[in-house]
């Protein structure tokens, strides 16, 4: 018999703009000791389905309309808030996506861990402490005795997620719900956390609901998979069947969108082409403290250390690294958004690192950036037209009476409907916004584009579209591109050459396929080993 069996669940949100059916007649079951993966893109209702079952959706506006959720024979949807709290604390544990915000920054790890024990388990302080220390040890935190009294900010992201797991498991629940538990983590850390969840699941014979947008990760973790789209379950089965012989068109689209192949087109540049962008011995360090008028400079932390690289016209250089590796700082320093401490950047024969003031401002049209978060990189109070017309007017790239025509051309170029130019950014989806940001960069016909994680905030199917758009535009306009990403699969799909960064240095650089086939540096090998491709169990 299934441990949790959800039948015909429907949840709706009654908002000002109408009724949204977030979960539409969804059924799934979790067997004891098994992992159920729920896959879907943002807005597919995969989280809302689980939160509805646990009584955790904000209500109003949310409401569970119908269905049953039998957990060990009892219907969770019929329970009082008080009973449900008991179940959540003792029988069902949860881990969330963001370990930075799900821990209380003002309480020690120890207090946060022992709280559920003292509330639900009625243990004494001393017993609770011992249990908590044992739990910390089990999730792989070294020196748990000392770490017990530490505050969350003293832990790294991966360690915090370990603490969250310890907290979720401390009352020995039967079911663990993990909602995108590794999405905010670096690949190598992600691999460790996944392994940890897997081990704990096996050791304690836990049932797990694993919610994720990442098909590769789910194929590694799950015994059963449910694919959701727009609130409905479109496909279910064991991972091998679902991912390798998908029946539903949407699942096929999801699998096809995975960037797990080499670059689809041959490079447009020749080996003997002259170097277009030359970065020489670039250094950038951050000053810690000492920002005021009378304060002294205290310390400097190097973020980019003696980096040199070259890019040819029409070439895409992938810059890979984990958070804190300095890859974004490098991109921003080349784009002159940050001042380099030393070093030179030469673009098409011109030393752009030496430019100052008005000269720099005018030269900026040659090197453009595309940012990670399309929600933050567009001014919320400017229409798309204003946003795209602005660079054209400021740099006097077209006559005033031709601005509308040029904006329309840009909209066509990035695949947006011309009729949308009078709309504001919030009226667009994430992928459309990223297209606007690309159009804005493109408006200036730049020679170099620095794209800083441009697809990591997007769903896989959208991600594939944006990657292809970038590829196509780079080739059409013969631009050089530096493509910064933590996602190796994406980098492999797009880049001609790859540079791997660790702690402010480039540790390995080479042609994409050569580097992926035979990584030389140990760090590159660790990174590659941590990728979760679609995985066939049988």
């Amino acid at each position, binding site marked *: 018999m299934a441990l949790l069996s959800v039948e015909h669940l429907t949840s709706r949100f009654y908002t000002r703009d109408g009724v949204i059916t977030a979960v539409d007649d969804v059924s799934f079951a979790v067997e004891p000791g098994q992992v159920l993966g729920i896959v879907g893109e943002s807005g597919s209702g995969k989280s809302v389905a689980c939160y509805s079952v646990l009584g955790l959706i904000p209500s109003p506006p949310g409401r569970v309309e119908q269905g049953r959720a039998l957990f060990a024979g009892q219907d969770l949807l019929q329970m009082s808030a008080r009973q449900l709290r008991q179940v959540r604390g003792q029988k069902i544990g949860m881990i969330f996506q963001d370990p930075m915000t799900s821990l209380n920054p003002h309480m020690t790890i120890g207090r946060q861990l022992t709280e559920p024990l003292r509330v639900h388990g009625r243990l004494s302080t001393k017993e609770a402490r011992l249990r908590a220390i044992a739990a910390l040890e089990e999730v792989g935190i070294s020196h748990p005795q000392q770490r017990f009294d530490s505050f969350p900010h003293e832990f790294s992201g991966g360690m915090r997620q370990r603490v969250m797991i310890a907290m979720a498991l401390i009352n020995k629940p039967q079911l663990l719900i993990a909602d995108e538990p590794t999405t905010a983590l670096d690949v190598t850390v992600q691999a460790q956390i996944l392994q940890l969840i897997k081990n704990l699941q096996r050791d304690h014979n836990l049932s797990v609901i694993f919610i994720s947008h990442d098909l590769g990760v789910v194929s590694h973790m799950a015994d059963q998979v449910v694919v959701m789209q727009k609130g409905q379950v479109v496909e279910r089965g064991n991972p091998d069947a679902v991912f390798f012989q998908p029946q539903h068109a949407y699942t096929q689209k999801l699998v096809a969108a995975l960037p797990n192949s080499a670059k689809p087109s041959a490079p447009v540049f020749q080996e003997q082409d002259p170097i277009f962008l030359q970065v020489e011995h670039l250094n950038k360090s951050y000053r810690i403290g000492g920002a005021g008028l009378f304060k002294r400079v205290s310390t400097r932390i190097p973020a980019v250390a003696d980096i040199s690289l070259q890019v040819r016209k029409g070439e895409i250089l992938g810059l890979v690294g984990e958070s804190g590796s300095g890859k974004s700082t490098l991109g*921003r320093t080349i784009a002159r958004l940050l001042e380099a401490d030393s070093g030179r950047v030469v673009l098409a024969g011109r030393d752009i690192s030496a430019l100052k003031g008005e000269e720099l401002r005018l030269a*900026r049209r040659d090197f453009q950036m595309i*940012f990670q978060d399309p929600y933050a990189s567009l001014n919320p*109070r400017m229409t798309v037209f204003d946003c795209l017309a602005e*660079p054209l007017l*400021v740099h006097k790239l077209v006559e005033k009476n031709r601005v509308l025509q040029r904006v329309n051309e840009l909209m066509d170029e990035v695949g947006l409907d011309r009729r949308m130019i009078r709309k*504001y950014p919030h009226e667009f989806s994430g992928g459309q916004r990223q297209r606007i940001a690309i159009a804005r960069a493109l408006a200036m016909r730049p020679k170099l584009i620095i794209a800083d994680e441009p697809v990591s905030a997007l769903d896989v199917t959208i991600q594939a579209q944006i990657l292809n758009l970038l590829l196509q535009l780079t080739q059409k306009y013969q631009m050089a591109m530096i493509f910064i990403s933590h996602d190796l699969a994406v980098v492999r799909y797009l880049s001609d050459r790859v540079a791997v960064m660790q702690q402010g240095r480039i540790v390995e650089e080479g042609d994409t396929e050569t580097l992926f086939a035979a990584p030389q540096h140990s760090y590159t090998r660790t990174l590659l080993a941590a990728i979760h491709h679609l995985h066939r169990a049988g």
Partner: protein
Amino acid sequence: MNTPADTNYEKGRSLWQDAFSRLKKNPMALLGLAVLVIMVTLALLTPWIAPYSYEEQNLALGASPPSATHWLGTDVFGRDQLTRILYGSRISLMVGFVATSVALCIGVLWGIIAGYVGGRVDAVMMRFVDILYALPFTIFIILLTVVFGRSLLLLFLAIGAVEWLTMARIVRGQVMALKHQEFIEAAVAMGLPRWRIMLRHLAPNVIGPIIIYTTLTIPSVILLESFLSFLGLGIQPPQSSWGSLISYGVETMEEYPWLLIFPALTLSITLFALNFLGDGLRDALDPRISKD
């Protein structure tokens, strides 16, 4: 799907035009706007429509409650209350709007520059604000009066000089939070001139707090005027203002309550109107809030 808005999409509209069309759909804001327009019109027309003279005394009548001849009653000197409120609105509304505009212009510019440029410029600009904050207001006003004598212009200056400080701080804080947003970085990367970034990208995005603070400043300025008048700066009897009428009304409220009720009511109605309009403007200027 082809609504009229869809078909003439090529016609350009600015944020303000958009905001106005949204404001028109907010009945409370329109009501506020209408009340303010009526107040200002009455104030402008006062010399022609006032039933009596503001200084003409009728000691025989003395303080009388509202009646057919004196709708809002008279004060102890037998002066018509309605007339004095009308004349008072000229001073109070002018002080309220002009002094607040002065504070608004200086404060917003100061705050945006300090917040956006940052570093030493910010440190120096904000220490200057701190010093002005620390200066006791009363002494500052008395000094001004001693040096320049008494004039209405000085009144605006004095009020503007204190009220912009808080505005500058609020705006600076907002700008500091905004300037690391990617759309500002994108604007820099596009090679936009600094002034354009400040006016086109930063200013519209700090407008919410600015409007809220402005609607709070206007009433406090109107009341501040009566305090300044008491110190000898600003208006002198027999001229009237809402602030001075209210403070006089407070003294006599046990015997002649109408002397407090009517000026206070006028001020309250104005404040309500301002708040409704302010809230409406704030929402209208945020394209994310209303959907159309």
